[in-house]
């Protein structure tokens, strides 16, 4: 009984009257206009597919994960998408732990309807083996702080996390082509989901005076308002879902007016989400580049740091084959000079199109002379990545000259950055080389290795 009493936050008559009369003069308690949104802030976590959204004081966190499952019998070629919401009592004392209450279920279903029926996520691309294995995408939404308008914030969080989620790539293998091999992210770059459009939810609050409509209600306004409507639209002007679960009755005119308003706001919101995701993606890309540059060319021999450049690029089969060729050529020597390796890398780069960074772990390996070239070859072969060289032997030194010239043109800016990295690393990490460590997936370890 006491628990229940503690959960009850009651709105006082004074507060109610104050909010309503302020609205009559188009003023809201936090100073916004009736149709203004609160400040939106989207943050991303370290993992792919995790996002935290702050809309004013409301905080919602969302996480996307994927699993291989059997598809539904009536949709054998499509993957599945499911949304789970968790209303933690941390957000609001009236939320009870355990089974989701009515509002939690409603929130989950609104977001689900917006994404599923409007086909925002392409589920057919999630199918791997028809009628046997498909990806099941699961979105978990946790409410961290309830300050009103959970639906909009949760929707934005779900969209942001779906946009940054990367699922592992898998290929069919085995004798009959029926076995599925899932490649871990270190081996092959994980793929993003195919998202056709972004359905954004916009929530309106209605009050007993019909002309009062507010957008993005706060916690107190939600307690005062007599009706609400959530419209999910995308930037193209399609209405993906509407939820007006009873409450204050509204005329058609007001509803259409609200929908048009929602269209405008959805456009803004989509732009903001896309910006935030772009920024996050570029940061991730930059981080990977930095990682590669520091790990790459450690100049063990201390020669020509100026060759610079490396760029582990990685993925390209062209580069892989080139490396293989090179490998075959110089088997015997242990690698000594990174200069050669870096040159190699440069040449590879030139082959594969001068992309600086392709995403994928850099399989570079800074090796010292204790490396077993056979082992290296084996590991390289299994990886299927082209990595710059490991075993370049000093014979390669001749090579650097030609590629150096070619590459210089397009990698000039890279060189300077890299060379500095190289020289530093060469001195400090040299001693930390552990012969046993083959290329480590983590950047830190590869740095150490070298």
């Amino acid at each position: 009984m006491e628990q229940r009493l503690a959960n009850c936050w009651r709105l006082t008559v004074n507060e109610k009257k104050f909010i309503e009369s302020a609205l009559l003069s188009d003023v809201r308690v936090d100073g916004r206009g009736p149709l203004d949104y609160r400040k939106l802030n989207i943050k991303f976590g370290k993992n792919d597919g995790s996002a935290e959204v702050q809309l004013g004081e409301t905080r919602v966190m969302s996480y996307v994960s994927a699993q291989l499952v059997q598809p539904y019998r009536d949709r054998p070629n499509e993957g599945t998408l499911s949304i789970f919401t968790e209303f933690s009592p941390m957000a609001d004392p009236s939320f009870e732990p355990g089974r989701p209450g009515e509002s939690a279920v409603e929130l989950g279903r609104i977001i689900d309807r917006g994404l599923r029926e409007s086909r925002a996520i392409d589920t057919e691309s999630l199918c791997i083996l028809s009628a046997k294995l498909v990806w099941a995408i699961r979105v978990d939404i946790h409410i961290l702080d309830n300050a009103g308008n959970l639906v909009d914030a949760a929707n934005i969080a779900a969209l942001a996390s779906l946009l940054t989620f990367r699922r592992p790539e898998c290929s069919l293998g085995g004798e009959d082509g029926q076995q599925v091999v899932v490649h871990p992210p270190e081996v092959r770059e994980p793929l993003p989901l195919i998202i056709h459009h972004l359905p954004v939810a916009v929530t309106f609050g209605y009050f007993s005076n019909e002309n009062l409509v507010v957008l993005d209600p706060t916690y107190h306004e939600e307690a005062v308002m007599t009706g609400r409507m959530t419209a999910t639209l995308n930037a193209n002007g399609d209405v993906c879902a509407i939820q007006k679960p009873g409450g204050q009755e509204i005329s058609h005119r007001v509803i259409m007016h609200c929908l048009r308003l929602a269209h405008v706001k959805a456009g803004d919101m989509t732009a903001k989400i896309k910006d935030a995701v772009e920024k996050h993606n570029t940061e991730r890309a930059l981080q990977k580049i930095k990682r590669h540059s520091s790990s790459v060319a450690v100049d063990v021999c201390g020669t020509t740091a100026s060759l610079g450049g490396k760029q582990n690029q990685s993925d390209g089969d062209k580069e892989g084959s080139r490396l293989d060729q090179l490998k075959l050529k110089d088997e015997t020597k242990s690698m000594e000079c990174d200069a050669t390796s870096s040159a190699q890398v440069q040449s590879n780069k030139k082959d594969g199109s001068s992309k600086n960074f392709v995403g994928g772990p850099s399989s570079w390996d800074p090796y010292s002379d204790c490396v077993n070239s056979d082992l290296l070859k084996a590991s390289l072969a299994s990886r299927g990545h082209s990595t710059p060289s490991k075993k370049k032997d000093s014979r390669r030194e001749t090579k650097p000259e030609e590629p150096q010239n070619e590459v210089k043109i397009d990698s000039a800016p890279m060189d300077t950055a890299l060379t500095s990295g190289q020289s530093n690393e060469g001195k400090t990490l040299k001693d930390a080389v552990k012969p046993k460590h083959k290329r480590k997936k983590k950047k830190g370890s590869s740095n150490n290795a070298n």
Partner: protein
Amino acid sequence: MRQIRAEIGAVSKADGSAIFEMGNTKVIAAVYGPREVQNRSQQMSDQTLVRCEYSMANFSTGDRMRKPKGGDRRSTEISLVIRQTVEACILTHLMPRSQIDIYVQVLQADGGTRSACINAATLAFADAGIPMRDLVTSCSVGYLHSTPLLDLNYVEHSAGGPDVTVGILPKLDKVTLLQMDSKLPIDILENVMQLSTEGCKAIANYIREILLENAKQLEYRRGV
């Protein structure tokens, strides 16, 4: 629109009850109340507490459904929707510190169950003598092959087009319930809503006739 049929007084124990049929969809609603609040902590001193429970019978769809263990999310949401819809139209402040329960059970499901439930609930409330501002009627509209279709059945619904469920207060001509899924451009939505409003008004006329008939029957039985 499909053929509508309604019957009042199906559940004798309840204060008010009704069966509503729209084509092959058949729904039964029972209202208990106003009565004493069973959970004192939820008692509201200025209005009545409305509780709603929606469930689909296992035999209502083509294949026998298994009841999901964790509480069906769809049922929870529809219960919430029905509750808030009727809460808006009954005069809750006339019955403070009391509770009204409405139980809706789907006996045959062929599309449009939500609408049938709300229509049945309205009839049941009227039968129970609970004061209301206006009837709430509801009907669903779809949009397939660039034609708005009134009152979708299951086959039309599974064709994948949008499904708009609208609940209105016919005399006041205001929209209470509006739910939509799947994609639809805004202007087409406007047309679709117009169509559904007309459908709802037609249902409202039918409901009024039924209530009038029922009232006459009651008078007759009382020997007036």
